[in-house]
């Protein structure tokens, strides 16, 4: 009985040790990190991580070595993947599948608002990318029966210039 308790205690300690190293403020964890995207001068990196028991998009400041909050971007009822960021990481485009289909969404860190760019778009969409100045958004479209490239021009208002 004592032995069982002892091993139980040991395994508990190991678990907390794992949890501790997971919650550390570092770019990589003991879980999967993938799909990195760098900002214009390489200060910020957006990527997908499986840490903390959820899969979501993280934004890390490589200069200050800390994470940056993205309120309302990751939601409990959707998976957000394939991030791409503008010059100062003001804009983040990504794929989110929350209504039974994948949509390209645009997150603005200034307003903390999400804009769905492909609402009502015919055909499957994937692999979005935003230009560093935030003007162009490109993605793959399946609406012609094969993968083709679609380009959105957001215009020259509210660009993310360095």
């Amino acid at each position: 009985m004592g032995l069982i308790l002892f091993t139980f205690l040991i395994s508990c300690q190991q678990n907390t040790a794992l949890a501790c190293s997971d919650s550390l403020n570092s770019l990589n964890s003991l879980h999967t990190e993938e799909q990195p995207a760098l900002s214009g001068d390489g200060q910020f990196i957006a990527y997908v991580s499986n840490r903390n028991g959820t899969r979501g998009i993280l934004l890390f400041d490589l200069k200050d070595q800390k994470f940056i909050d993205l309120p309302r971007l990751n939601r409990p009822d959707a998976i957000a993947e394939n991030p791409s960021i503008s010059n100062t990481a003001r804009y983040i485009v990504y794929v989110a599948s929350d209504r039974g289909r994948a949509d390209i969404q645009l997150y603005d860190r200034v307003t903390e608002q999400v804009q769905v760019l492909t609402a009502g778009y015919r055909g499957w969409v994937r692999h979005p990318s935003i230009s560093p100045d935030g003007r162009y958004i490109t993605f793959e479209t399946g609406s012609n029966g094969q993968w083709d490239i679609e380009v959105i021009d957001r215009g020259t208002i509210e660009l993310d210039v360095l």
Partner: protein
Amino acid sequence: MKLAVRSVLAVLVLAIALSILLISCSGPQYLSFPLDPSGRSLNSPYAELSPKAVSQYLVFVSDRAGSQDVYVYHLNERKLLDLPELNSLDMTVADPDISRDGRYIVFAGNRQGKSDIYLYDRHLYKLRSLTSSLSAEVRNPSISADGDTIAFESNAQGQWDIFIYTRAGDPLDISTNPR
């Protein structure tokens, strides 16, 4: 009298048309790149994959020439750019990215079963591997728009992690792993 009314009407119609044009120009709009069977434009009858627009350069992968190759399309000039020495017959490529000045292109290449992150210099027509010393799978590279930093995934630690290198191919001098 009739002429005056007519000209006022004409001016009104013109003003309305102009304002509609202006309103439609200010919001997000889809640029049209129809399929070009000749393969000299952005979209072809074959697959176009992994597009990234950086300033005027749109880098992507297409199998229009029979194998997966990297292409760069100039958005203003509406034409493909020459990339001498980049695509070769013994390498498959994926996930390209390009710097703001259009000089540096990174992509994941696979040659004889070995995956590497490659850097192509469009001024010198030089292609080199940044990860030849890394004996692990690598994929999904991203280059910062200034062309100085490259991030990619590697499974060297037994799971996918983010690696960050300088353009010279050295790991960035920061701790990226949990201590």
